[in-house]
């Protein structure tokens, strides 16, 4: 168990392409931190730098009190779960679990004890003598977890471990990994591009884009107060409606005073758009319905507002029985408007 600290960590390939631009992050002991972002944002590179699979161009990575920049992956005492599981295909499940312990010259009784324990926790005892190719995707995933657990490392690193599973299994494993991590209390860094995974699993969420950290915070905090336009659009499915403030002011007949002159873009969560007027101060927009997506428990309504370039998406519970072409009144409470700076795209305090 240990904390992980990154300070001014930078990664440059062949002196030209910069994948990570001097990044600071501290991960407390026992915390599960999720790195989330679109593909190519550097989240996997960052994880691999912590693991020691990529060199660190500059800056410092510390695990516990040790600076690990120059240490081999094996010396960092971490365990990693790979996207494709990376199980050794020629070894049985038991041998897969034992491999890391044998390499570290753990005494035989201790190896047996830990393997039995991990197999019990992960419910893979019946498969211990099978080869990985005889297992289903979910079982392989468990073995990959087991290989990390038996080592009892300072930290777990997860590199999109659930992306090869089907949706149902992914949901189960998500809960299970979370529960396991809580029980063991091992510091974990979890990389995913799936924001549902990110929201549900994280103690602390790190949203990355273009090799930089956009926002760090508790999941709900990130969701309810996105720090930048990027985070606003990326987190949530669908993401926030982002509307140029001047255009919105023109249509709605003025914006509340809380929206300052610096505000370039207004963000509105789909679920904050109501079809009936709330009893709080609000904006009202007249819109024409374009399409409805029925999800079952809720409906996503796509509508356009005269004078706005982009469509507005709103989320409403139950089934919305609207027809395309129908006019709608959209109501947005003043308190639910998110303001972003015209220049930097950063959130303006409100």
């Amino acid at each position: 168990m240990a904390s992980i600290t990154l300070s001014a960590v930078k990664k440059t390939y062949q002196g030209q392409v910069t994948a990570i631009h001097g990044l600071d992050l501290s991960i407390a002991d026992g915390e599960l931190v999720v790195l989330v972002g679109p593909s190519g944002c550097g989240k996997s590179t960052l994880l691999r730098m912590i693991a020691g699979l990529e060199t660190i161009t500059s800056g410092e990575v510390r695990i516990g009190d040790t600076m690990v920049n120059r240490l081999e992956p094996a010396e960092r005492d971490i365990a990693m779960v790979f996207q494709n599981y990376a199980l050794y295909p020629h070894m049985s499940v038991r041998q897969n679990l034992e491999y890391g312990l044998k390499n570290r010259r753990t005494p035989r009784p201790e190896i047996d004890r830990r393997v039995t324990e991990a197999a019990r926790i992960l419910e893979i005892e019946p498969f211990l003598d099978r080869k990985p190719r005889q297992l289903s995707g979910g079982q392989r995933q468990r073995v990959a977890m087991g290989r990390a657990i038996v080592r009892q490392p300072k930290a777990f690193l997860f590199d999109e471990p659930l992306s090869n599973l089907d949706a149902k299994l992914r949901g189960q494993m998500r809960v299970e990994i979370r529960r396991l991590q809580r029980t063991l209390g091992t510091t974990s860094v979890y990389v995913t591009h799936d924001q549902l995974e990110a929201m549900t699993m994280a103690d602390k969420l790190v949203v990355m884009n273009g090799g930089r950290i956009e926002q760090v915070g508790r999941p709900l905090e990130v969701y309810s107060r996105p720090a930048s336009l990027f985070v606003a659009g990326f987190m949530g499915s669908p993401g926030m409606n982002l509307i140029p403030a001047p255009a919105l002011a023109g249509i709605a007949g003025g914006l509340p005073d809380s929206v300052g002159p610096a505000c370039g873009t207004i963000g509105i969560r789909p679920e904050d758009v109501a079809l009936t007027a709330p009893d709080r101060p609000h904006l009202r927009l007249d819109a024409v319905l374009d399409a409805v997506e029925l999800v079952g428990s809720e409906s996503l309504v796509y509508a356009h507002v005269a004078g706005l370039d982009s469509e507005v998406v709103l989320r409403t519970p139950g089934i919305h029985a609207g027809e395309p072409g129908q006019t709608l009144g959209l109501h947005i409470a003043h308190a639910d408007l998110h303001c972003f700076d015209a220049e930097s795209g950063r959130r303006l305090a409100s």
Partner: protein
Amino acid sequence: METKRTVFPNKLLPYLFVAPQLVITLVFFIWPATQAVKSSFERTDPFGFSTQFVGITHYIRLFQDPLYLNSVGRTVVFAVAVTAISMGLALLFAAAVSRLVRSSQFYTTLLVWPYAVAPVVAGILWWFLFNSSTGILPYMLRYFGVVWNANLNGTHAMILVIIAAAWKQISYNFLFFLAGMQSVPHSLTEAAAIDGAGPLKRFWTIVFPLLSPTTFFLFIVNINYVMFDTFGIIAATTNGGPNQATNILVYKVYSDGFIGLNIGSSSAQSVVLMLFVIALTFIQFRYVERRVNY
């Protein structure tokens, strides 16, 4: 495997299409092979007037002939040495090249070149290098107190042909090993690195076991190579000598038949070799084609 079937409207046409290949196979492979089998049971008088059926006499004599049994022994030494050296070095080179990032293409090209050299030329090349009067290697060996003479010393001759034969085959083995190593997923070696295995341990416990289908395939191919394709090397360098020291089976077939003019015995020897190939091919199809499972 499902393959696409072509249907010919004309009944004769498909036979015409395969005819050239069939004719070549029949004339140059099947017919000589049956002739060899036939003549291995016959004895012809020196002038070729009469031919007499002698049953398995040639085979019985063969396995009682100390010269033939000596040749079998030489062949085993030769085959084991060439296979071990060429596969071992190829594995080493492949492991080295697969660690390179930018220059790997360059080294791969260079390492493949020897394969383009014909066995006879390879033999002559090494014969020059090891020539006791003009070669550079014997000159250097003299400083270590070794008087090198492949014309007189059987062991020296054997070493010479082993090096020449192995040198040529390294390229081939190297290519297969390299391709095999590149197909081992990167994440496996990374996982092993995190699991605390150093580079050597990773190689022996992860990469090498996963290469086993390649290794087995190459083993069969190399044995085949050593048993047959090395004829040119022997013919160009030692002619089986000195004193039978490098007279391996495939060369003995030739020297007994075409120099000793004992066609019957030579045929029997080639039939024995043929059975050996058939056995190897069988093993290859049986196990390699189905892949060695890990």
